Structure formats: structure tokens, C-alpha cells
């Protein structure tokens, strides 16, 4: 949050002066104009379209500008099952997006493979290759759930710092903004996961 003294701010507001910080203004603008990538994979994409359509209307949150090109998009909604044939393309699309960029993993398939996890051609979660900001479970998640994820993302953007040691990831020059694209190996995708973003969960048995 801002570094301005709250009492001073309310006092000034009473006088008709609105005080804000650069960071607040910048984040306020960013969080209210997130442009998602128009990109559907499977069933969840239909719910994504329903979220953008008449009843749920994602435009109320400033996210209605679906861009077909990754170069113009801020947010990638991974909506549906990621197959092993599709995974390299998704990583490539992510790499083509300009910073700052965010990812929502929508639905059980994008999170973990979902009901198709036992299939030989299904990737067990897109977070193996790209960092995910918000996960929404469901098969498919309702449009309200996508809106909730969207609001969570807005909250996350609002809290990002522009300066200092714990400033936002995309402002740190030593952090990668592109990730290696997996290749088709003899049996499976190679590598099976990107260690920089994915750590397999450790199962502790007592």
C-alpha cells in the first residue's frame, strides 16, 4: 500500500486535494485494463467466452479486450486441457507476450491434467513450463469463478512494488521473462518440466 500518511491524506481530501503515489496510480491503471489473450483450448474456453458475453460481462472489470495476438496481451488464460502436442506452442505464446504478463490456469486440466490425467497425451499441469499466478479449480469453472480469479489477479497487481528490494518480478533485470520451449523427445516432452518454475511436490508419509 501507499507510504502516504493516512491521516494527512484524509485531511487533504477534505480540502479537495487528492493525493496518490506514482505506484498506486500506475497499478490502478494496469489492473483495470488487463487485456487477455484470445486463446481457447477446450471446454473451459466456452465458459471463458460466456464470461466475456452478455450475462457475466468481464468488461465490468476492464478485461473485455481479448487480443488474438500475444504481442498485445497481458494475461494468458490457459482455458482447457493442455496436450503434449500443444504445450510447446503455449510456452512459445507465453514467450511472445510482452512484460508484465500474467497467467491464469483455468480448470482442472490446466492445473493438473484433471479427468484426463491418466491419458498418455495430456500434460499434467501447465505450471510445469510457465509460472502461473492464479489457479481456478472446476471442470469447467463457472464464469463467476473466472471473474473471481480475475479479481484475485487485480489484487495481486495492486500489491506489486515498483521500487525497492521486493519490487515486481518483471522489473527485476536478472529474472527471466522467457522460458525454454519443450521439445518432442523419443517418448515424452523434453525436458519433462522446467526446474526453474516447477518443483515436484514432496510427499511425506508418516
Amino acid at each position, binding site marked *: 500500500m501507499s507510504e502516504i500518511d493516512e491521516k494527512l491524506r484524509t485531511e487533504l481530501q477534505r480540502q479537495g486535494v487528492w493525493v496518490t503515489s506514482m505506484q498506486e496510480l500506475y497499478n490502478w491503471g494496469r489492473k483495470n485494463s488487463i487485456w487477455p489473450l484470445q486463446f481457447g483450448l477446450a471446454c473451459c474456453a466456452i*465458459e471463458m467466452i460466456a464470461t466475456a*458475453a452478455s450475462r457475466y460481462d468481464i468488461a465490468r472489470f476492464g478485461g473485455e479486450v481479448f487480443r488474438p495476438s500475444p504481442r498485445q496481451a497481458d494475461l494468458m488464460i490457459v482455458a482447457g486441457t493442455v*496436450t503434449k502436442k500443444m504445450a510447446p*506452442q503455449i510456452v512459445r505464446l507465453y514467450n511472445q507476450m510482452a512484460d508484465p504478463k500474467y497467467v491464469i490456469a483455468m480448470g482442472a486440466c490446466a492445473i493438473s491434467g484433471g479427468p484426463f490425467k491418466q*491419458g498418455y497425451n495430456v500434460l499434467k499441469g501447465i505450471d510445469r513450463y510457465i509460472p502461473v499466478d492464479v489457479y481456478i479449480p472446476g471442470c469447467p469453472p463457472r464464469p463467476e469463478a473466472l471473474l473471481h480469479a480475475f479479481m484475485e489477479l487485480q489484487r495481486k497487481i495492486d500489491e506489486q512494488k515498483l521500487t525497492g528490494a521486493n519490487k515486481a518480478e518483471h522489473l527485476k533485470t536478472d529474472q527471466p521473462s522467457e522460458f525454454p520451449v519443450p521439445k518432442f523427445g523419443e517418448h515424452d516432452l523434453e525436458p519433462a518440466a522446467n526446474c526453474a518454475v516447477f518443483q515436484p511436490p514432496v510427499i511425506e508419509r508418516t
Partner: protein
Amino acid sequence: MSATLQTLEAMERPPVRMTSRLEGELLEVSMGPQHPSTHGVFRMNVALEGEIVRKLKPVFGYLHRNHEQIGEHTTYLGSMPYTDRLDYFCSMSNNWAYALSVEKLAGIELPERAQYLRVILAELTRLQNHASLLGFLLSDMGAWGTPLMYAFREREKILDLFESLSGARMMCDYMRFGGCRVDASDEWLARAKQIVDRFPKFLDEFEELILGNEIVIARTQNVGTLSADLAISAGITGPMLRACGVNYDIRKVDGYGFYPRFKFRIPLGEHGDTYDRLMMRALEMRETIEILKQALAQIQPGPIVNPKVRIRAFRPPVGEAYGRIEAPKGELGFYLISDGGPNPYRYRVRPPSFINLTVLEDMCLGHSVADVMVILGSVDIVMGEVDR
């Protein structure tokens, strides 16, 4: 409706001729899998001469989710939720096709009320599928927004019905072998009747908005013409076949369910072009409303499940069966081989949109790139069903 049919026949259709100055020089373009108009993750390798399509090669498999393999490794009932995710617009009709083939395999009879509920739900599915298809097709043509918003407004009303009955908006998982999962209350039937009665108003509005539109006519008439001979020999079914003038509807041919009890007509096209395919959907929705009105008036209280069927530990006798229905996209069939075990020995899906897609190249050759999207949209594909 007769007025629209007359204009359809009376319209003069000048042939579309494309010429190019770049003779013989081909440019290969890969369209998809990330493309706003490929309805998912479909990819085409198109060889272009100037702007004219000379070759088109579809690339599949970007959504191959091992449906059949999983179906062979789960129980018969365990496959029911997976069928929802085949054609994710029409989960109810997928359920019905699968339940029908299992019932054929095991020789299960259905109570009367369950048959009526199935007809009502499958026809409601057809309404929302065709409405949203028209919206998508128009947005592929460049009318981005408005028609899709109108279509989804109506779709949401039908999804509300599905949700209050089955608990899920899209993945209903509603049918069971020998019946249905939950009974519809009288209030539900009254609400369904209300929605069905109001639907023609939307159709009038929508037809006025798009079907006479000059741009729609210019973009669709004589574009992507499919001959009846090719359609029959390629195994095309559904509205796409009927747009070529072939009178083939499995609801009439097989008379499965209680369809012989209802009076309805099959709309037929004449030219087999994109405009006819578009009109097929609009006209079919009118007939679907007729079926729904009759079914909602005829339905009587009664049991919804055949009490003799043991759904747990279900083991059909050794044999094979093929059950098919007229899904909104065409003939949807399930072919099952049972070896007497708890899961099928072979589980095969005959997906309508995959087989309808096989003639895509024949329809697209000689047209411009922009027309490819319109032709593809009029085929009505869902990748979950194409790649399975």
C-alpha cells in the same frame, strides 16, 4: 418460416470467380492452432496463390485427450462424464448417444417419462448449439460481438435450465442406463415451457438481424459449395448434409427415442453452400421448438429409471452394439464391444464434426483465405470431438 424458404429458393446466385496475377507462385501459411476463428486448436496448412487457396491440409491432434483409451479402462458408467467432454456444447446429446448404445448392448427398456425427458433435453441442447453456432459464424465473418452476445443471452437461459436440473451448466452427466438421473419437477417443466415459448421471438429478431443482411449474403452465397454426391460419399451427416438437399435425419430414419410420436419437418437446402448451411440451423431451430412444445405437452408423471437395471457393478452380456442419434452436428454414434467384463473391450466414437471436416479442402479450394474461416465456421466443429 415459409417466407424465408421462398426467398432462399428465389435468390439468384452469381458464381464466385477468383483470379490471381501470381500464377503458380504458392505461399504456405500455417493457420492455427492459436487462431481466433479456428474454434479451438485446429490447424490448417494452406498453400496460397495470392489470396486464393490452392491446397489445404488440416493438422489434428492438438486436443487429443485419449477419450477412447480411457473409455476402455473405466467402467461403463465411468465413461458417462467423459462423454460430456466430447462435444462440450452438447453434453446432453452425447450422454444420450452413449446411453443408447449401452442400452442396446444390454437390452434395457426405458420408462416413458425418461424418454420424454431425453427428447426435451436433447432438443434444448440443439437449440443452444445452433444459436451459439450462428453467433460464432457471424463473428468469424467479422461481426465481432453483437450476434454472439444475442446468442449467448439465449444460451444462458437454457443453461440455467440444465443447471437447475442436473447441477452443472455444461457438463451435465445427466443420463443413466435405463433412465435419467434426476426427475424434473413441475416448476422446471413450466419454466422450460416458458423459455421455449419465448424462443421464437429471439429467432425472429436474429433472422431479421442477419439472414437478409447484404454482407452476410455476399460472404456466404456460393461460398464453399458441397455437392450432394460428394457429401454422401464422404459420409457427411447432420445439417451439413441436409443443406445439400439430401433428406436424411436419423430422428426420422431410425426413429429412436420417442421421435416417431412427434410431428416435425426436416428443412432441406438446395445449393449446399455456406448460406444454406446457415439457414439449415435457423430453420431447424423452428422445428425443434415444435418438437419441444409437443413433448412438454405430452409428458406424464411416472418413474424415470428402469428399476431392473443394476447401475453399480454393471456387466452387459458379451456382444457388440452401435447406437446412434442425430446430435446437433450430425450422426453421433458409439460402438461398443463387450467381453462380459465391467469395462468395454472396445469403445469407439463416431464423431460427426470430425467426419464433416474431411471435405474441408474440397469446399475451400478456389476461395480466398477470408472465406476459409467462414466455411470452417459453417461446418460446426468442436475440437473436443474432432480429436477426442
